């Protein structure tokens, strides 16, 4: 990100001082107040909560230090939940990228009416998580669902997609991948459109076929965009909640109990705010590392040219 702010406009010369700060505060103040109240204060408060035992309405009772963190990593299901979250992330990010890349590639063909197809490919974006989950619940319905019907035509036996521990996570992943395709396609398509056409022309003159062109021009030129989508998808996957809450409630037998869902259950059903906050802080650090990685790598543009 370009933090070299441009040469600024100074009224009447002289050094910048408190008067300038006071005037700037009129402009920055409103945002800053919201950020302090609803981002920074709660972050600090979460850290405090994770180190205090609380009562049932969340009032801190006594200091317990890092014991919640020790408990997270030694007892209970947190390790398992972290592993599930990781699996969930892999199962959604990779297919989302590959399928999104395919959609972006065909949406970049120069044809009449391609705009209509681009709108269609963007459309999963507007189907919100609850709506999408309801539709897929209908599709996954084991006794009368359409998926069971198609599979039985292919000679496969009935699967309880959402209530079989072997399949529940995969089923939720399918919904997540479908939902991510709108965003992935739009962003990857915009990346494709920045590749200069001349590159392909000279490749064609050199006799490179479509596959060579894709491998030697499209993929290298796309790597910053692919990396951006990769990181954003990863962060989104780590924060998945809606699909889980509607389709499986973390079940069956904890098979889909990903971190954010576990935080939600611990805090708002078991009123174990301290334990839930410690999990939230761990999630915070995981996402922080990913975001910093994104900034550093995009900043250096190591993939570029």
């Amino acid at each position, binding site marked *: 990100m370009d933090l070299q702010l441009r040469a600024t406009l100074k009224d009447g010369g002289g050094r910048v001082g408190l008067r300038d700060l006071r005037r700037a505060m009129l402009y920055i103040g409103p945002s800053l107040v919201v950020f302090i109240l609803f981002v920074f204060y709660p972050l600090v408060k979460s850290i405090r909560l994770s180190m205090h035992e609380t009562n049932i309405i969340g009032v801190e009772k006594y200091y317990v230090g890092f014991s919640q963190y020790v408990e997270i990593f030694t007892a209970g299901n947190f390790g398992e939940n972290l592993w599930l979250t990781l699996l969930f992330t892999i199962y959604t990010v990779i297919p989302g990228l590959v399928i999104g890349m395919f959609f972006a590639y065909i949406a970049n063909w120069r044809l009449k009416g391609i705009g209509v197809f681009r709108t269609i490919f963007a459309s999963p974006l507007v*189907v919100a998580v609850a709506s999408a989950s309801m539709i897929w619940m209908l599709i996954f319905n084991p006794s009368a669902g359409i998926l069971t019907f198609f599979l039985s035509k292919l000679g496969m036996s009935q699967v309880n997609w959402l209530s079989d521990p072997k399949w529940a996570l995969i089923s939720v992943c399918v919904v997540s991948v479908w939902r991510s395709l709108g965003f992935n396609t739009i962003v990857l398509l915009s990346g494709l459109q920045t590749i200069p056409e001349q590159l392909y022309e000279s490749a064609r003159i050199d006799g490179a076929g479509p596959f060579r062109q894709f491998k030697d021009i499209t993929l290298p030129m796309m790597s910053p965009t692919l990396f951006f989508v990769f990181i954003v998808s990863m962060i989104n996957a780590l924060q998945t909640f809606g699909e889980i809450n509607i389709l499986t409630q973390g079940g069956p037998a904890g098979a889909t109990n990903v971190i954010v869902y576990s935080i939600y259950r611990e805090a708002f059903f078991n009123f174990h705010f301290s334990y839930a906050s410690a999990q939230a802080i761990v999630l915070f650090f995981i996402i922080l590392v990913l975001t910093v990685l994104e900034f550093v790598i995009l900043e250096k543009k190591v993939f570029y040219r």
Partner: protein
Amino acid sequence: MKKLVVAGQYLVLVTASLLLLFPVLYAILVSLQNAAESVAYPPVFIPSQLNWQSYVKAMETAPVFRFIFNSFVVSAIVTIGQLITASLAAYAFSFLNFPGRNAIFYIFLSTMMIPWEVTIIPNYFTIRELNWLDTYQGLAVPFLASAFGTFLLRQAFMTLPRQLYDAARIDGCGHFRFFLTMVLPLSRPALGTLAVYSFLMTYNQYLWPLLVTNKDTMRTVQIGLAMLQWDQAAAWNSIMAGVILVSLPAALLLIAGQKQLVRGLTAGAIKG
């Protein structure tokens, strides 16, 4: 040969569209079936006759229009609020000189690294303290500022020519008037991008409204949908009718504001 390739490309595009849209198309078909058809096995695809009753049933089972109204109110408050706070802050970061400007800009950016899920527990406590559970302000106020929006608008403001400001100064125009009469009107495309983006994001919110609303009259669309699912009397056709109803406004927004939305979503990916 050329024609054959083009025909092949269209075939691929249409097939891909049908596969991607299949869940939505299927939902529309089921919403037009009668209750018996929607639970039949083997599944029925084409309804025997267009059955709009399911939409009536959906609206009777749950106050669908109330949910849509609530979501519109909250989305409108958040959108207008973000346009105001983000454009003011973006102006300061691109046209004012003040001590600590870079540091404060970094503080703004850092909020993008703090996932909302990490802060929900204290935020829930805050809203409860304020007695804002089941209110529009409880749903909207935490989202009234946006680092992403500030960043997006700052990029747009910085493309305005510097001479513009010099000329305004010579005419005796102060900062705020310059902001209102020159910067904002000239940055309409970027403001439009932020508006479409934040409206859609708020309209589709799930976790926060789930926590801070309990009364049916305050539910937003995504939470309200679940009411249809819980109701034993509601069959799949009316649940799907509800899904289609609440998704319509967002779909219209995509068609009307696709250009703005694409610009917003790609703002982080393509460096200007």
